[in-house]
């Protein structure tokens, strides 16, 4: 971990992405907004992995799309190596694409079924011909396949001839081709079987140390996120509710949602059955088109009071009981930001 070393490679501030909800066919009327991402801030340092964890509908995938500039942000800023990412156009944007790449979730739809593996992994070079001269491309593609643990002789095969895990490796090779500095991994292992998932996670770990990559690792599986992440952000309905180092989040969670989430994960150890303290949330995540007022978690929270409905808690370092303390006072090693009026550490939820 390169804590606080120099300037972060990526600084995201108050990022917002709202999708309009429209009605009508010919004359479209906007009747509301889905607040997919609603004010998210974080830093990513070089060589570090930031895990983003949350349930479906929390906005973690939209966050990935916006960071990859596949969707325009509604507002907010992001600095990549100190430069405004969202202002980039034309040649600058192309340059940015070389530095930031994405690995997608579904290994079955993320590869064009009608292209050979050689074409798929070679496509980055065709789009950015300055990276590799034509004669070298075939060799580079084979090199990439070798790096991700595939047989370089399989360049002429089609995606359907590979298993899910192998396809995900092809997707990783494509993302690696331009030697990016940051890779956004959007649920890269959630579609894979357990034994294959471990192989791909190990590969991602090896590539990180070999190429000094920074990852934004988005997943719903808390175990997977802990395994790979240095720091973790927990998202709920478009907002970060708690951020901290992997140890702070998993061993010293302060936000009730983080605690409930951790407690819900089944532990593969039958001896703990009925001995664990369980927090069972009721109901489902509300719709991001119509989030609750104040704290968004209050409708499922056992601590909720009138205050929670009125006032939105900010993501700040808090004392036991939720009182906000300034940065300079946070001498405690476990102090980390959480967005709850009644933040309170609840140790050993993890078993």
């Amino acid at each position, binding site marked *: 971990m390169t804590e606080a070393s120099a300037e972060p490679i990526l600084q995201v501030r108050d990022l917002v992405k709202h999708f309009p909800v429209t009605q009508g*066919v*010919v004359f479209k009327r906007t009747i509301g907004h889905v607040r997919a991402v609603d004010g998210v801030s974080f830093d990513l340092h070089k060589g570090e992995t930031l895990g983003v964890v949350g349930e479906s509908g929390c906005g973690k995938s939209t966050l990935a*799309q916006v960071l*990859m500039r*596949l969707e325009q942000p509604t507002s907010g800023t992001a600095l990549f190596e100190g430069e405004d990412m969202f202002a980039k156009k034309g040649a600058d*944007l*192309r340059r940015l*694409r*070389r530095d930031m*790449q*994405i690995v*997608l*979730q*579904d290994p079955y*739809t*993320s*590869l*064009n*079924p*009608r*292209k*050979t593996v*050689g*074409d*798929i992994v*070679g*496509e*980055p070079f065709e*789009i*950015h011909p300055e990276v590799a001269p034509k004669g070298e491309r*075939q060799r580079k593609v084979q090199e990439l396949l070798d790096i991700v643990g595939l047989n370089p*002789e399989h360049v*002429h095969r*089609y*995606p*359907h*001839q590979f*298993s899910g895990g192998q396809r995900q490796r092809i*997707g990783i090779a*494509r993302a690696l081709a*331009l030697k990016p500095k940051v890779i956004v991994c959007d649920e890269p292992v959630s579609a894979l079987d357990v034994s294959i998932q471990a192989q791909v996670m190990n590969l991602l770990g090896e590539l990180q140390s070999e190429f000094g990559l920074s990852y934004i690792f988005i997943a719903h599986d808390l175990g997977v996120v802990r395994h790979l992440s240095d720091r973790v952000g927990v998202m709920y309905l478009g907002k970060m509710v708690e951020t901290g180092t992997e140890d702070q989040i998993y061993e010293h969670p302060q936000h009730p949602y983080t605690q409930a989430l951790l407690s819900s994960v089944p532990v593969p150890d039958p001896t703990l059955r009925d001995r664990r303290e369980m927090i069972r949330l009721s109901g489902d995540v509300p719709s991001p088109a119509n989030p609750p007022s104040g704290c968004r978690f209050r409708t499922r929270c056992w601590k909720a009071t009138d205050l929670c409905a009125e006032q939105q808690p900010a993501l700040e370092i808090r004392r036991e009981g939720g009182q906000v303390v300034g940065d300079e006072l946070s001498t405690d090693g476990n102090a980390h930001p959480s967005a709850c009026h009644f933040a309170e550490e609840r140790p050993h939820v993890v078993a």
Partner: protein
Amino acid sequence: MTDTGEAQRSIGSAGAAAQATVEAQDKASSTKTEKQRGLWGDAWRDLRRRPLFIVASAIILFLLVMSVFPGLFASTDPNVQILDKARDDPSAEAWFGYDHLGRDIYARVVYGARASIIVGVLSTVLVVLLGSVVGVITGYAGGKTDSFLSRFAEIFLGLPFVLGAIVILSVFNAGVAGTPSSTRIMTQVIVTIGVLAWPICMRIMRSAAIAAKQQDYVKAAKALGASHSRIIFKHVLPNCLAPVMVYATIALGGFIGLEATLSYLGLGLKYPVVSWGMMISVSQQYIVSTPHMLVFPALFLIVTVLAFVMLGDAVRDALDPKQK
């Protein structure tokens, strides 16, 4: 639940063993030709081995030769009337018999191939080109472009075909004195079919393009900085071809029939041009007494349509790597 699919998928990939041997041979040849093969190259290699493709191409080639050089196949003039022999049965002298005006049906079938195939093939090409271009644009662009072009296409879809054709062809020929040349009529018929039938192809293309553009591989290409034209030509189009191809091969037969309808109404081809469609439509009145007037041109029409359907199937399969 997924297990069933999974098992089937593993049968699919089960070609694994066979694959390995193919692979071994491939390697030997690929060392010679270090060229990157693509979808089309692979498809062509694959097609040449398919009996379906070979048979279909042979039939189509034969029909093409017949339409360009009908004289090679029939020495009789298709328009000579020998009224004595009207509605005579097939014999050694006239293989397919004579029609109600005593014309040699064999000669007419041979000479009719040209008009029918030209109208069928060219109108299909026109419809597919027009429909695909508009379809891909609307499907890929979406939003206002899509709304506008889709509504525009619906105007044509709402028009009854025969009525539309009558209006268009009458307008074309309004100021023409006497009988227009056969080329001119043929062009008019093709354009009419094209104008009236493209929206169907456009709708097929549009929905295929919408499905394709939402795939993750398009997202990945965008993240790599691919341009719109690259995404359309490399990622969207190749994945939209299959449904359009199916439509095109079926439509081809229909268009040959449409030409007959228009001729029957006096709007399409006229004497001295011969076409299968005209022959079939005339045969209606004699269907009981002289069935061979219907049977032979219909047989040729069916074989032609079948050949194109087979060709379409073979090409579609060859373009789908999963079928190999």
